[in-house]
């Protein structure tokens, strides 16, 4: 019951955050320098034609009306029309790229979660030994490299030297992403570089804390096999902080890969956002940013719920949630 109550309350907060954020995004885009009608018509447009277009696009209506129209469209699933490519519905561009980004994010998760958990546990169990030092050093080194540096290193090794993988992640015309899964490899690997150090170090330190706990000592002294103790007793408890970290980075992973996607030319949400900003395609910027916000809010919500589910102290706590 408490869990359900917590769920309801968090869901309410999530909706409130979204409303507040949508207002903020609309307001920020509103105060951005430059006039939309002027942008559409170009530098040589006359005053009258700019005024006429403003009226036709409904730009002369009061702020709250325009906000409600825009937000209403979003709720109905109508993301509007691109400003830079007239007649092109944002829905026709947007969801394809979102799909690509989700596939990339899942691939990256598949790469870095097992890797960093495994090495994090290993380093935690072997704390202070050579294995630990090597893993920690490698983790620190990859963490310190920004993704545009690690990306270029990966391109040099896998594409230029070994010629194994494509440099640019384009999808050949007439094919889809599923037929070209190899284009996911390098972007996912460079995300792994960024996340590995972060997650494995978190896993290592929580593993060390848990391994020192009395119940683990008791289990070992009772003569239980070491691996059984590590994987059955210690790991479950040591996973909690790591899950929070992974969850908190979900938003970034699903919507904020602007650098990685731009570097590899990957046709996802990040590169779409970048191109929308570069071309000042306001409805597209709004759609991208609002969607990324949604992903962030949603991933925080899910993490929260998972944490509550995994941690009985929160799950069964009475009273305040």
């Amino acid at each position: 019951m408490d869990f359900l109550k917590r769920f309801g309350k968090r869901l309410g907060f999530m909706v409130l955050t979204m409303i507040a954020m949508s207002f903020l995004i609309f307001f920020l885009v509103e105060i951005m320098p430059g006039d939309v009608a002027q942008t559409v018509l170009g530098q040589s447009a006359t005053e009258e034609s700019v005024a006429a277009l403003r009226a036709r696009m409904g730009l002369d209506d009061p702020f709250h009306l325009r906000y409600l129209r825009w937000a209403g469209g979003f709720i109905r699933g109508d993301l509007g029309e691109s400003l830079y490519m007239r007649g092109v519905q944002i829905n026709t561009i947007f969801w394809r790229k979102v799909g690509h980004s989700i596939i990339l994010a899942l691939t990256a998760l598949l790469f870095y979660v097992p890797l960093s958990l495994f090495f994090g546990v290993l380093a935690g169990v072997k704390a202070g030994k050579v294995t630990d030092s090597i893993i920690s050093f490698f983790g620190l080194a990859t963490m310190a490299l920004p993704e545009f540096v690690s990306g270029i290193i990966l391109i040099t090794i896998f594409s230029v030297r070994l010629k194994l993988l494509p440099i640019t992640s384009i999808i050949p015309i007439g094919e889809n992403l599923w037929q070209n899964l190899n284009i996911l490899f390098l972007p996912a690997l460079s995300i792994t570089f960024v996340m590995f150090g972060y997650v494995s170090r978190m896993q290592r330190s929580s593993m060390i804390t848990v391994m020192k706990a009395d119940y683990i000592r008791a289990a070992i002294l009772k003569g239980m096999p070491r691996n059984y103790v590590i994987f059955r007793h210690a790991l479950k408890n040591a996973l909690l902080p790591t899950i929070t970290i992974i969850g908190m980075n979900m938003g970034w992973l699903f919507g904020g890969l602007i650098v990685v996607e731009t570097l590899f030319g990957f046709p996802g949400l990040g590169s779409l956002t970048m191109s929308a900003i570069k071309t000042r395609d306001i409805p597209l910027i709004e759609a991208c940013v609002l969607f990324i916000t949604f992903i962030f809010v949603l991933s925080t919500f899910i993490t929260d719920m998972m944490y509550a589910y995994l941690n009985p102290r929160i799950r069964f706590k009475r009273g305040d949630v």
Partner: protein
Amino acid sequence: MKRQILILASLFAIAAMVFAGGQQDTEEKMILKVAEQVPNLITPGSWDGQAFSLNGSIYDYLIEMDADTGELVPALATDWSTPEGKVWTIKLRKGVKFHDGSAFTSADVKFTLERTQDPDLGHLKAQDFEILEKIETPDDHTVVITLKEPYPTFNFIFTDYNMAILSSEYDYVSKGESAPMGTGPFKLENLIPKESALLVKNDSYWAAGLPKADELRIYFVPDIDSSVSLLEAGQVDIVPQISPVIKRRLEALDGFKVLSPYQESRFIAMAQDREPFSDNKVRLAFKYTMDPEILAKACQGTLGKEIFYNETPIVNGLAQYKEIPFRGRDINRAKELLAEAGYPNGLTVEFFYASDHPYGTDIAQTVKELAAPAGINLDLKGFPRDIYLSQHWLNGPMLLTGWGVRVDPSMLLMLAYHSEGPWNESHMNNPRVDELIEMIRGEVSPQTRQGYYDELQDIFQEEGTVINLQVPYLVGVSNAVKDYRQPVTMLPQLKYATIE
């Protein structure tokens, strides 16, 4: 343990899937693959010049230019004539069909020309066609255009990249960029905005045997380095608009060549309506600091061969060009002029340019070094090209902008040097120049017209607001590409190209 083995096995399976992703290319079809910059607007009349391969293939023009000789050749118009430049009779090709199957008629030409005056569109040729008085269509294949005043070189406007002939039945307001359609050699089969376009051969194209390729695949790639990577990896065959540095890189590799189909201009514009260039002495002082040889080297070329330096906007290749010897670099004279203009201790001025445009950064940095000894300190403001064009171009006190060649120079003069020109980037305001431009447009006699051109170029030399560096436009192609044609109209004629 079993479960762990299962997890490991599935991870391997997924990794194998990732690596297995390959592409089976379609056999026997001749496919041209181009990497082009991401087009923003592709509607003819308002595009900014980055979708040439796409638009030059979907649409046709009334008149084309022969890429080798530079002569005007019939396309959708088979014949054009005028007694004294005021009334133009244009005969249209018969039996031409739009991609939707509808017939091409004089109504479509009338629609295309009248559309330039639509105030909601911001058409880039609006000013050029203000001269229209009436357009008559006596039959389906004849258009009679009456101008308000004579304009003997009016026909050249039809080669402009914005003057693609559109269908009068197409709903441009609602369909816009989602389904561009014309009479061109290739039909748009599938467009994924900001990603790629698939075009297929137009089987009912009016020119027999054309296009030669079966398919045209265009990838919209945001930056030139990625485009060149695709070329090197064999994923595309043609990459237009590469920089001279990339040219050297490609020439060092086997299997690629760099074509230079025509020359284009880089104009250094000095705004006449604001300090310090409002004083002609400052403009002259700046011109005295230039060194064409060094500028040519900065552009990786040889002066007089690939690179040309002028202080007028008329380019060397055109008949209207007047040879004026270079004034010579003279730092002392530049200093004197600056002192006379009230800047004995030199001056600082902001210089805006597109840092990612070929030659942009090379020219800007070299010009800064050349001007410095005279006390002219250029504060370099480089921006990505889209930001430069949308925010700084037409506003800054000093600009470096890439310009394509207009076949009839009066088109360029009207656009950029007439005081009321929409792209008057140097804010030039010289009554005599305005008068000469208008006389050039109305003059029937080529000799008299050339006289006006000569006077104009002398004025530019002494009082002008521009330095014109002519640089080669470069296209990187794989050796398999044959017969790539691109005349100075800037539109690639991919209908001739083949892959061997």
